[in-house]
């Protein structure tokens, strides 16, 4: 499974998001590759990703992608990320 964390520049919030998604996955007992992308390259990178985790501000800018989008508005709250990601994983079966 591949998860893409997306922010505007790929150097700030997406790195925090990547680390916290990895923590959330450990809590959920799920193994996945987590990669960082900026909004400019995210559409291309999304072609091989199963999930995209990003903020509500950036999600609409991704346009049509095949990957399931998980929106997180508090990037430092691992509990919230684990809840949202866990729900998305369950929904996908």
């Amino acid at each position, binding site marked *: 499974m591949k998860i893409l964390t997306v922010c505007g520049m790929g*150097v700030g919030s997406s790195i925090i998001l990547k*680390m916290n998604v990895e923590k959330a996955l450990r809590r959920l007992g799920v193994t996945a590759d987590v990669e960082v992308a900026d909004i400019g390259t995210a559409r291309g990178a999304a072609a091989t990703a199963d999930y995209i985790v990003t903020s*509500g501000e950036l999600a609409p800018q991704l346009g049509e992608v095949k990957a399931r989008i998980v929106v997180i*508005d508090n*990037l430092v709250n691992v509990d919230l990320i684990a809840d949202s990601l866990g729900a998305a994983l369950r929904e996908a079966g």
Partner: protein
Amino acid sequence: MSDKLSLLGLLPEQSVLVNASASDWRSAIRLAGEGLILSGAATADYSDEMIATVEELGPYIVIAPGLALAHSRPSPAVRATGLSWVSLRTPVRFGHQDNDPVRLVVGLAATDHSQHTAALGGLAQLLADPARLAELAAAPDAATVRRLISNFEPEVQS
């Protein structure tokens, strides 16, 4: 925490501004830019780049309630990896639908995509606790901010 790429190593006292006044989000980002200029991490152009990032992509840099991570991409205006810190006397709105108003702006200048990763991880853990974020945002001077950070031991990343 004496490592120069650690959270404290990247945030010298001169880059910490507390109880500052900003009339709007642009001036709050400019204050964060000043801290990066003072430490030699960035030139004045980087402040414009951080503001342009929000103008182009929206206020997604407000990463948690009350907290903005002002940054742009690596560019000629970035001289070294560094952080700055601005706590605001009166919170300002960035236009974020959930996380406004912003009480603390952390500025980030990055020379590449990896050097600052560990420090950002520490910062994220430090500010994940809303009570600690509030305590840091209300710290009366730069020395107190740095002492509160040095008292915090991030959990080891596996």
